[in-house]
């Protein structure tokens, strides 16, 4: 198939960017979106031009590295898939595809389509962990966890931290990411002792990183390749309110 690509090219964080047009000819319909970009890049390299920079790693939808906004939709907007799992058969022959980076002040462009998502690392440092020694793994059945709690925690733990929620949000808010981590760790017994500290610490780190605020429009949920539900955000709001009340009154 033949496509016209309009790709965001930007030399570095501070340089102004622009959309550059490329003809992508003879692309196999079975190619993934990233493989299509690989083919385009090989041709650019052959011509001695600078290849398009984009993030990728596992290419099987679980690492959270790929991060493209395709025709205004993070990961292409199919729901439940990452860009690397999106295939060219989803597009039509002759179509024009606009490819932009995930856009947010907290995700500065490193180059072209690759953005710096270390703001998420800083949020994790704010409380996305449990403070116990991480030596040998304990016997799994030693800590009984009810099935519904385990299911909820596991669904939230599916978050791969790709940042599509931020990219899709009208306000570039990271609430779904933070909500997934807080729901995951605050649900299970290993994480409960630090429940309040975690909710406060992660939300403050999120605010400091310059993300926007949630307006309950759930664009994030629609874009999330792991389909983290909006209830996670309600849970984060509840945990944050509870922790704030305790902190405010008890100190």
């Amino acid at each position, binding site marked *: 198939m033949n496509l016209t690509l*309009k790709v*965001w090219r930007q030399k570095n964080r501070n340089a102004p*960017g622009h*959309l550059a047009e490329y003809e992508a000819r003879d692309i196999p319909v079975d190619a993934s979106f990233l493989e299509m970009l690989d083919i385009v890049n090989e041709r650019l390299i052959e011509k001695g031009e600078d290849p398009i920079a984009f993030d990728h790693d596992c290419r099987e939808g679980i690492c959270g590295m790929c991060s493209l*906004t395709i*025709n*205004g*939709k993070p990961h292409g*907007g199919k729901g439940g898939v990452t860009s690397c799992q999106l295939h060219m058969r989803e597009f039509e022959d002759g179509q024009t595809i*606009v490819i*932009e980076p995930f*856009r*947010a*002040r*907290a995700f500065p462009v490193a180059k072209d389509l690759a953005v710096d998502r270390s703001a998420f690392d800083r949020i994790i440092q704010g409380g996305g962990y449990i403070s116990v020694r991480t030596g040998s793994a304990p016997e799994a059945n030693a800590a009984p966890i009810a099935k519904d709690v385990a299911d909820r925690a596991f669904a939230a733990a599916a978050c791969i931290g790709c940042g599509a929620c931020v990219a*899709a949000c*009208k*306000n*570039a*808010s990271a609430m779904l990411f933070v909500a997934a981590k807080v729901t995951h760790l605050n649900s299970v017994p290993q994480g409960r002792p630090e429940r309040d500290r975690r909710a406060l610490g992660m*939300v*403050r780190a*999120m*605010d400091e990183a*310059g*993300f*926007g*605020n*949630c*307006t*309950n*429009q*759930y*664009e994030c*949920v*629609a*874009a999330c390749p792991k389909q983290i*539900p*909006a*209830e996670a*955000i*309600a*849970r*984060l*709001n*509840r*945990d*944050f*309110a509870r922790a*704030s009340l305790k*902190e*405010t009154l008890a*100190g």
Partner: protein
Amino acid sequence: MKSLILAVLRFYASSIGKKIVVALSALGLLGFLVGHLAGNLLIFKGPDAINAYAAQLHDLGGLLWVARIGLLVLVGVHIAATLQLAAANRAARPQEYVVSATLRATRSSRLMVLSGLTILVFVIYHLLHFTVGNLHGFYDADGAYRLEDGRQNVYKMMVDGFRVWFNSGFYLLALGLLASHLSHGVSSLFQTLGLTTPRTRPLFRLAGWGFAVVICGGFASIPVAVLAGLLK
């Protein structure tokens, strides 16, 4: 005391803290809407009922001022926190998408600031019109809008007010936007306060729409009845 104040300020400084303040102030304003509508609907019971209700409200004296100042604070806090959040939202994406798409956000949810600020303009107009009364000459010296006992003839104020097409027009426009604001706001409030669960989400969505339709339909029935000649 100082540490308590600092802790409260720290809560307000956070993103979720401000949202909770917006949600709680909204809860108070929703209560006001219900009370205001219940009072207004007395117009359908006739002039005596609504005039007596208005007289009772005025007789509250100091308490009425407590309620008025309370409402003013709620409105002020609701708007100030929202505008701060909206400014932060704008700043969070300095470079817009060249091609942007909306996946599932409703039109109402995207118009919240616009609908809210239009409602604010309407509320100012509405207060000048009926409460201060200097747009329509309701409180002027010749006493056309006074009853024999010297009290305000609220019934006549409402009927004459709504007979003017642009008053009714602006009123209905504001109600349309209020319905839009409520349809997103009410269900959003439950989410922000952390009360929404997978099971209750559809209920709260429905409650938002139901509340919007009942409140705005109720208010709209009065100018519609006046324009249709049912209230004279």
